[in-house]
């Protein structure tokens, strides 16, 4: 039965419609995107365990840390096992995480929630995040930005779905949300397991010699940064291009996450007329901009190229941050417009990066390389909020208030984005010495080699 998960059992036959693949990827990303709506459970968990916010926040932190670690270390396995097995494992981990957490809640054992949602669920997050990426790139070599944008948009959209769904479940199972957590977790486990299995059993790999009708790979490679060769994950991390792109992603995410984390208090500090309900609407609008940017900007990158796209994310982003710091208090609509575009750049940066990696390193291990690059996300997840919060605290201690709490950190973000802009500017095509010989590429496609046997002789 498990052999049907094997890579060679998932190769599509002739005439398979490639547009059946994006919903499979979306099913996985919409499910794991729930993690961004975890905050819905925070207060009920605090009330249930009779503890403070910090021990509950650790659940989310463990999950995000495991996302980064499993994407970084599991990427090569995902690449070699194929998307179906990877999605299957991700679905099992994600659902099992909820089930164990439900038992933890029922038994009043917080450590079980750390183990379930945080550790095991976090592994599901990392494997699930990278599992459809290289498959989509192989099916859509002519439009990789659109394809990966569609999937990664799902990760942003997952929170939009999970937020109201979790609220509804918490209200449905008990009068007090703190008593409804366990059945809500079990329900989410069932829903996400079914969704992710549907995705896993729909996904297919293209045959080795498949290419879209009328598409010429040689013509596509005429763009200055698009490689004709292939680089393994082990070799990719030895190239300056990988670390420049790591810096680009780190800077883009740091700048965006700083606003995302503080959106609600930030708008209320800027405008005393904005109520808590309106601030919640602002947070929702940013989530929509984040999601829209993932599909919109990533698709645009197929037309204008990846490097110019990031020049816009980082260069225009820096200008927008400057305007936000200097003129953000002018009007609510102006503030909302600036932050909305900045958040669309944040989402676009996430969604465009797999296509950028494909351009630079080829498709042979793009999923594994993407997994390693996501460590930039984990690092930015710490740095962004740290900068905004620490500076807001110190400005508050210095007697400042309102919009003045954020001015300095917004100017710092301008600098962060300019660093990313320069890093992007420095990206050049990967040198041939890092690329695999064609015969090894062919051998890899027929019979994946052991993870460690890839590369050293080329570096």
């Amino acid at each position, binding site marked *: 039965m498990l052999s049907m998960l094997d890579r060679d059992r998932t190769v*599509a036959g002739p005439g*398979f*419609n490639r*547009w*059946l*693949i994006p*919903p*499979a990827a*979306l*099913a996985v990303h*919409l499910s794991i995107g729930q993690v961004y709506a975890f905050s819905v459970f925070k207060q009920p968990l605090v009330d249930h365990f009779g503890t403070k916010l910090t021990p509950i926040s650790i659940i989310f932190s463990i999950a995000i840390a495991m996302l980064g670690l499993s994407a970084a270390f599991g990427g090569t396995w995902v690449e070699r096992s194929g998307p179906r097995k990877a999605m299957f494992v991700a679905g099992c981990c994600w659902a099992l995480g909820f089930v164990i957490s439900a038992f933890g809640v029922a038994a009043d054992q917080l450590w079980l929630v750390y183990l379930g949602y945080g550790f095991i669920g976090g592994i599901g997050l990392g494997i699930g995040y990278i599992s459809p990426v290289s498959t989509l790139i192989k099916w859509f070599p002519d439009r990789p930005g659109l394809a990966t944008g569609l999937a990664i948009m*799902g990760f942003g*959209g997952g*929170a*939009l*779905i999970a*937020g*109201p*769904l979790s609220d509804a479940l918490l209200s449905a199972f008990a009068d007090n949300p703190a008593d409804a957590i366990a059945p809500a977790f079990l329900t989410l486990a069932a829903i996400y397991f079914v*969704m992710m299995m*549907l*995705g896993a*059993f*729909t996904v*297919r790999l293209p045959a080795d010699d498949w290419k879209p009708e009328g598409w010429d790979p040689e013509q596509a490679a005429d763009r200055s940064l698009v490689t004709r060769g292939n680089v393994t994950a082990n070799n990719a991390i030895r190239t300056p291009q990988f670390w420049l792109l790591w810096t680009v992603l780190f800077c883009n995410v740091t700048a965006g996450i700083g606003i995302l984390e503080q959106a609600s208090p930030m708008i209320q500090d800027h405008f005393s007329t*904005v*109520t808590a*309900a*309106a601030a*919640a*609407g*602002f*947070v*929702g*609008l940013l*989530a*929509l901009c984040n999601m829209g940017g993932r599909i919109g900007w990533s698709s645009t990158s197929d037309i204008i190229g990846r490097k110019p796209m990031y020049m816009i994310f980082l260069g225009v982003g820096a200008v927008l941050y400057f305007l936000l710091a200097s003129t953000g208090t002018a009007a*609510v609509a102006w503030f*909302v417009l600036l932050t909305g575009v900045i958040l669309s750049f944040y989402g676009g940066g996430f969604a465009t990066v797999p296509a950028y990696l494909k351009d630079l390193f080829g498709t042979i291990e793009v999923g594994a390389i993407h997994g390693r690059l996501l460590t930039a996300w984990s690092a930015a997840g710490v740095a962004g909020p740290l900068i905004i919060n620490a500076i807001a605290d110190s400005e508050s201690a210095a007697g400042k208030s309102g919009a003045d709490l954020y001015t300095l950190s917004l100017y710092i973000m301008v600098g962060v984005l300019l660093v990313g802009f320069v890093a992007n500017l420095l990206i050049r095509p990967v040198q041939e010495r890092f690329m695999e010989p064609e015969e090894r590429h062919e051998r890899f496609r027929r019979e994946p080699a052991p993870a460690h046997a890839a590369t050293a002789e080329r570096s």
Partner: protein
Amino acid sequence: MSDSARGITLWFIVGGALLYGVVNTMAKVVELF
């Protein structure tokens, strides 16, 4: 169930789920304006 049927069904499921999320979010966004 054929690949096509499963894929098309999945398009409807993920599309419906996204619509549910967007509509619920828009209901909050109107509070802002």
